[in-house]
């Protein structure tokens, strides 16, 4: 069993990162939370909702853009599905697309975009889905280091208007530290959540944060904790 005896209350309107070795069940956990797979035992609940499918925006590892739709139509797809497409939501999409540098590509098809752009489109599509809860499964894994820092800045600049409860699964300690309010170290097997740490630096954070003493200290701590957990598959 990958996930066993896990009980946790995720704080609302905060970004929580889950880090851990590959194969420790991070993605499985997100799939369970999203409602795609049902746990063998136990329940997942979100505040004020009975259903999870359709209430939680979930960005999977692959960009999963529909190749026959333009970027514009891909971005509006979740709103169309829920019949919530109107002038206001369309305007909101345009605004955020400008911030993320997607605006010039709205009429393009996914195959005409670079890997980084596709991920940004998938990310924006997830953000635009009208829900208060967002799951991100290694959203920026295929971006190079420079592009990633660019994206972190974008997300920080979006933070004011995003203001949602986010769970971010990542391999990247720096990414977790930079973006989250709380970081959880996860392991497979029993009692999956081994350690958690709060990051109290206020948002929006600047790139300088990446080299602050506090940042380095927390990074060291996390690396130590990650070395302590040994996943089943090694």
């Amino acid at each position, binding site marked *: 069993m990958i996930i066993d005896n896990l009980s946790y209350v995720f704080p609302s309107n905060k970004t929580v990162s889950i880090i851990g070795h590959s194969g420790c069940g991070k993605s499985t956990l997100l799939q369970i939370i*999203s409602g795609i797979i049902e746990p063998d035992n136990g329940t997942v609940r979100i505040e004020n909702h009975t259903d999870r*499918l*359709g209430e939680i925006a979930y960005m999977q590892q*692959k960009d*999963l853009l529909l*190749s*026959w739709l*333009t970027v514009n139509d891909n971005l509006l797809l979740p709103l169309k*599905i829920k019949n919530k497409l109107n002038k206001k939501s369309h305007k909101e999409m345009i605004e955020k697309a400008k911030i993320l540098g997607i605006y010039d590509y709205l009429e393009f098809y996914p195959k005409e975009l670079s890997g980084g752009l596709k991920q940004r489109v998938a990310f924006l599509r997830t953000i635009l*889905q009208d829900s208060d809860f967002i799951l991100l499964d290694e959203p920026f894994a295929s971006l190079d280091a420079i592009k990633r820092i660019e994206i972190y800045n974008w997300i920080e600049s979006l933070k004011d208007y995003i203001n949602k409860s986010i769970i971010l699964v990542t391999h990247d300690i720096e990414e977790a530290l930079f973006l989250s309010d709380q970081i959880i170290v996860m392991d497979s097997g029993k009692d999956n959540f081994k350690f958690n740490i709060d990051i109290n630096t206020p948002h929006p954070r600047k790139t300088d944060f990446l080299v602050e003493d506090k940042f380095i200290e927390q990074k060291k701590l996390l690396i130590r904790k990650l070395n302590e957990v040994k996943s089943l598959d090694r």
Partner: protein
Amino acid sequence: MIDRLKFFLSVYSLPLIAFVIVVFIWQILSNLGVFQTWLLPPPTMIIKELYYSKSFLLEHTFTTATEILLGLCLAIIFGTIIGFLMSSYKFFERSILPYVIASQVIPIFALAPLLIVWFGAGLISKIIVVFLISFFPIVIGVFDGLSKRSNDMENMLKTMGANNFQIFNILKINLALPSFFSGLKVASVSSVIGAVVAEWIGSKSGLGWIMKVSGPLFQTERVFASIVILSIFASILFLVVKFLENKLVKG
């Protein structure tokens, strides 16, 4: 405009040049008396035939075209329905797929005489033959296309709150379109063969009938004229399907 012309030439210039060379050599050899005209008429004679018998040929082209288009439309309608049912219900696939395949194995030459006995030498028996020959690629195209799964995308649409109908509409149809069009392209060309075969076996009109009656009369230029018309018709049909494919299959 000039760019488009350049593109057109870059794509079609080689086959056009090859065509012109072959026709040219054919004409020269005919003029030199290498071929007897009743065995192999020179290109000029075929062109003359096309011109002088145009109303006669056109009338019979109309018959053949009607058979092809009606048969093909029926094949599209029923092929899509059967393919959809086969992909949706396992028991339906199991019970009907062997017969769909079997229908393709029966030589059309064996079946056509029966159909003519049953339905007469008129339009209906021809439509049925065209239907039978073009039905198979369409069913298989629709069935294969709709059987394509993308679990990741399906899950993603579910997390967006999509119901089964929306998943079908947004995802499955679009995943199926390319293989539907592959089937339709094959069907559009083989439907022409179907019509000619059916006319050959028993009819009173159509280009297949012209070919059948003109051969024994040594009117070979008329046979060739029919072949030219059929080739052009099949090409147009194929291009129309290709055009629709480009319009509908995006990205």
